[in-house]
């Protein structure tokens, strides 16, 4: 069951438009921030002549539309420009930050799917039973705690009191010392596990009460098979779309976690770039975030159609 190509084409065009809109919006927002890169760089030594010179060397004395047009022209050639502050290419910033962030996000997603499906199915199988009530209470409670608090708590308990895990990733290479990622991944998992497992549970309960499951039971199909092959795929459609939203959320949740545990990923790069008013870097990030978000949501809609073709996911 493949969706018609025209549908994908439409979605892709829409995605391009959305990305362009995001980029424009971010540019306007950064321009609207008080001060510019020259002022931020001058810091506590705001000698007006020096600020004017910095502005000149950065090309900030040109009108904003002209700078945006220049940048957009570069983008069409696949050139994201160079940082105002360091003069290093923006692509370098992105590739340096992308590694740790992707690793964090991938590890989180890899654990998120089996964990939340497992929890959801477990709770749904005994609806209203003690296990279901415990899972529900726990997921609600954990979901109510902000990541920042969870992170501080975990780092203090496991990193400093018990000494089981590194409390931060300071000076560590996340690729060669994956232990530094354990706590950050747990923090990132804490909230999405709760929402998705609850969605799976609700979907499972609906699916188990549906006529086709009753029919399968009448045919004598085993309970396990019904759960995993008949009910679950239908229950997953809403969860898949929530998963896509989780990917978007991961991009922002990552900012908190990266700051807390000192992981030099995209979130850190973005915060620094905004504080320094380094527009080309901020813009480069906006493009990447926009493309990732559009792609992930498109993939999720495709997957949802695949799981539940009859539920007719709107384009």
């Amino acid at each position, binding site marked *: 069951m493949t969706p018609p190509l025209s549908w994908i084409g439409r979605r892709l065009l829409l995605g391009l438009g959305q990305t362009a809109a995001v980029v424009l919006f971010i540019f306007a927002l950064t321009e609207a*921030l*008080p*001060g510019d890169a020259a*002022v*931020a*760089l*001058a*810091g*506590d*030594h*705001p*000698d*007006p*002549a*020096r*600020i004017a*010179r*910095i502005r000149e*060397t950065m090309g900030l004395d040109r009108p904003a539309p002209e700078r945006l047009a220049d940048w957009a022209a570069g983008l069409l050639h696949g050139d994201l420009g160079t*940082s105002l*502050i*360091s003069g*290093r290419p923006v692509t370098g*910033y992105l590739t*340096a930050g992308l590694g740790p962030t992707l690793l964090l996000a991938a590890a989180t997603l890899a654990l998120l799917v*089996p964990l939340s499906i*497992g929890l959801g199915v477990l709770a749904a199988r005994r609806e209203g039973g003690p296990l279901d009530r415990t899972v529900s209470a726990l997921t609600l409670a954990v979901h109510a705690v902000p990541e920042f608090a969870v992170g*501080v708590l975990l*780092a203090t308990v496991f*990193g*400093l009191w*018990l*000494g*089981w*895990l*590194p*409390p*931060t990733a*300071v*000076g*560590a290479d996340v690729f060669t010392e*994956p*232990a530094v990622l*354990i706590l950050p991944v747990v923090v990132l998992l804490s909230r999405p596990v709760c929402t998705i497992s609850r969605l799976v549970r609700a979907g499972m309960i609906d699916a188990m009460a549906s006529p086709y499951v009753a029919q399968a039971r009448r045919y004598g199909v085993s309970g396990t098979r019904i759960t995993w092959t008949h009910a679950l795929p239908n229950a997953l459609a809403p969860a898949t779309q929530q998963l896509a939203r989780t990917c978007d959320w991961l991009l922002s949740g990552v900012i908190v976690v990266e*700051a*807390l*545990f*000192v992981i*030099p990923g995209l979130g*850190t*790069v973005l915060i*620094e*770039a905004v*504080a*320094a*008013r*380094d527009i080309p*870097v901020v813009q480069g990030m906006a493009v990447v975030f926009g493309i990732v978000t559009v792609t992930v949501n498109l993939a999720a809609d495709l997957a949802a159609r695949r799981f539940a073709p009859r539920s007719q996911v709107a384009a």
Partner: protein
Amino acid sequence: MNDARSSLARRGFLIATGATALAFTAACGTGATTPDAKNAAEGAPKRGGKLRAAFAGGGANETLDPHAANLFVDAARAKALFDKLADFGADLAAVPRLAERWEPNDALDTWRITLRKAAFHDGRPVTAEDVLYSYRRIADPKATFRAKASLEPIDLDASRALDPATVEFKLKRPYAEFPNVLAAFGAYIVPRDATAFDEPIGSGPFGFVSFKPGSSLVVKRNDTYWEGAPHLDELEFVVAGEESARVSALLGGQVEYAHELNPATARTHEGKGKIEIVRLPGSAMQGFVMKTDRPPFDDPRVRQAFFLIADRKELVDGALSGAGEIGNDLYGKGYQYYPAGLPQRTQDLDKARALLKEAGAEGLKVTLDTAPAATGFVEAAGIFKEQAAKAGVTVEIKVGNKDTYWKDILNAGTFASYRSGAMPIESHISQRLLTGSTTNATKWQQKDFDDLYRQAQSTRDVTQRGALYERMQRRLHDEGGFLIWGFADWIIATAPTVHGVSKQAPANTLDWARFDKIWLA
């Protein structure tokens, strides 16, 4: 979930954590069992080991170009890799570094600098040509380096190398305190052809190994350093923007040195034996600026009233959590030329009211500009608001943007929070208190004051010069625009194994972040 998988996962977890647990107990063990290690700190330095130091930094702003240094971490890294001709002692008087000595002419407008024997990491000797190249690079009209303003008195076109070890600087005017320029923030000496600094070559105590912007710089011992090789084999600067992360990394044994801690954190861990807290006094002046060229502060009586409104002890205790000492409305407590003999000002609300009444400023309302641009700014503003209310003055606090704060308050507004790192009193005056100063936030533009400064710079004798500085500072103490209520300690923390950290040097002076004198035991 099936059992086999989860038990395997648990085992992997234990393997992964075992190593860090060991490292952690080892780090604790040394602190807990050898309290006398601190007393033995005066013993013979031990050679070897790698020290990791955590600083706050800016990913995008990070550069190894020493002339572009802006942040503390830039300065610390530049100091490891490069040298200046001079640097500041704990009293902010210039001490010779790459310059062995300096000799002015009688008019104090030509200075002859004799270089010591030193070499860059690639073996080339440091010569007068390198010095001139470095200064010309900083002062390049197209460049935007911070030290450019400090080098302004030098006429670089007329300056020349007399021989490989002698530079003759021609100045645009007499300048008795010229060595302060040689020690200025960012005035490092680079090799004469240096343009890129991806793999920098300097003459400093450590040589370059590797650099990841926004995360780490590794440097190694320079065995041929002119002042003697450092004790450490290797030194790594790591960047952690969050203060809590720097402390956690130190407690967790991931670093041995953490720079810039909050007073509250320091109090929590002081005397517990896990980490050593070092307080560097006199590092950061804290105060308010009153713009003396506009109402209400164009009347000196209003300024004097504000001096008397401040309860300095309460400000230090409240805004700095007690980590500092009170100020006397003068910059540079404890530095060379500071007039310690002037009486300490204390709160006198009755006299403040009387002065305001005399100035016709009863029921005065002022807006205080502040921002979370430095530790304690917003807190100090709140405390001063309460104090001012007791004298019948209404202070409205306006919290601005921290990224652009310093530019915002330079010319706009009337009353604002202010802070300054360590610099010689002369630099403070020349940068902020003369008619032509580039960052004159108090708008203190007094011709006779300018004359006193010029006179001091044409005075060869230190005692006579000190007397002129005292006259200038008496004036400022009496009716200046700087309400300086305190000096914050600069707090760093180290693992108990770290020795040789200076406990005197204000931030940005020679012995601050001086890793060539530090050893691990």
